[in-house]
């Protein structure tokens, strides 16, 4: 079977595209922008209709109407006075919104997460209130509903941009800088995101999801983030002997590679390959066998040398890493 990214995905439940994500806000950092977007869209359409009407009058209007349109006074009104009034209002609105939504205003009550862009996936480092790292994960962010989340955005290589449109605007991840972004989800659910800054190669397939839980669910999820200990078996042996551990970490095992995503809880993730495949033993095996065919140019080599039986063992082992 050739795996195709996106085929019958659980992640597709994250959004069917309708209503468009920007018009379907799910939190206080996207909602006001949606209001603004509607105002701009409707206002823009109205202005467009006015200009068309003016053009219509210029072409087909009565002589009297045409005469009123055909002078410098009309140009000053249409081209200067009108935009001056409308744009002043818009500018004030925009400035106020910019300031209220920017992460320059932080109260300290936010949940803190550092997200580091990589070519072409995301490191997710959960932090406590003091900014100490508490948990590492990848490509998936779990948050409680109703609580603002302060993201510290960095990159390990080139410029990426973090964008989950239903939760907030986008923010670039730039070498040498830490940018901050506030997001919040008010309803439990899965919110799709994607890298928005062209980062070469499979930029198109650098997805991401945010999973918002109720407070109780979130506490349960957090409590379940304990690595399994002392586990043995063929899957782990193969994982270690095939070279996977050179790039991946599974806490509680000798696998401590850092180049690729942390796989301690990979089985609990909803997606594989950074938001592009559903996660099950079949897709896991397919990804390991030939990640290059699914997401060309990504950094994970193809493991053609593993037999079908070995593949199954490794992938079943991984899928169990809840």
């Amino acid at each position, binding site marked *: 079977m050739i795996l195709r990214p996106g085929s019958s995905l659980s992640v597709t439940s994250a959004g069917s595209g309708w209503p468009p994500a920007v018009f379907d806000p799910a939190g206080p950092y996207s909602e006001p922008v949606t209001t603004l977007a509607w105002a701009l869209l409707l206002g823009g359409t109205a202005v467009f209709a006015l200009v068309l009407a003016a053009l219509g009058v210029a072409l087909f209007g009565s002589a009297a109407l045409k005469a009123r349109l055909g002078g410098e006074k009309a140009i000053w009104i249409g081209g*200067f006075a009108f935009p001056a009034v409308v744009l*002043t209002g818009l*500018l004030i609105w925009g400035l106020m919104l910019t300031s209220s939504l920017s992460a320059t205003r932080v109260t300290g009550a936010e949940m803190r997460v550092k997200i580091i862009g990589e070519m072409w996936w995301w490191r997710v480092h959960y932090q406590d209130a003091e900014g100490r790292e508490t948990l590492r994960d990848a490509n998936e962010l779990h948050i409680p509903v109703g609580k603002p989340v302060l993201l510290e955005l960095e990159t390990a290589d080139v410029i990426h941009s973090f964008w989950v449109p239903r939760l907030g605007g986008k923010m670039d991840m730039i070498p040498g800088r830490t940018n901050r972004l506030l997001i919040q989800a008010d309803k439990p659910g899965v919110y799709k995101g994607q890298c928005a800054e062209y980062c070469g190669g499979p930029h198109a397939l650098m997805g991401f999801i945010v999973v918002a839980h109720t407070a109780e669910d979130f506490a349960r999820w957090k409590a379940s983030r304990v690595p399994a200990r002392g586990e043995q078996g063929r899957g782990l042996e193969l994982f270690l002997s095939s070279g996977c551990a050179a790039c991946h970490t599974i806490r509680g095992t000798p696998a401590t590679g850092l180049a690729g995503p942390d796989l301690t809880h990979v089985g609990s993730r909803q997606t594989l390959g950074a938001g592009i495949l559903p996660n099950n033993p079949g897709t896991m095996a397919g990804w390991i066998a030939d990640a290059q065919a699914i997401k060309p140019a990504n950094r994970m080599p193809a493991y053609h040398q593993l037999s079908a039986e070995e593949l199954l063992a490794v992938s079943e082992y991984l899928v169990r890493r809840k």
Partner: protein
Amino acid sequence: MRSWAILLGGLLVWAAHFFLLYGIGEFAGASTAARGGVLILSMLALLVDFWLARRLITLRASDAFGRWRADVALGGLALTALAVLWQALPALIG
């Protein structure tokens, strides 16, 4: 040169204003002092615009080209006064 200075007066004021503001934002941040600087610069720019406009109106040119030049210049002053006003807003909001 004088003709160009008259023709482009408002626009030159705008350019000086804008790049000074950018300099403040880039190199001095958004402290209260910086915001105050933005507002003072904006007042200055508007004053210069106003002074230029008055000169153009009182010293009405006698020839066709001079009048045309003054008309364009006045338009430029109106337009850039608006732009300067807008550029002062971020110091108050945001």
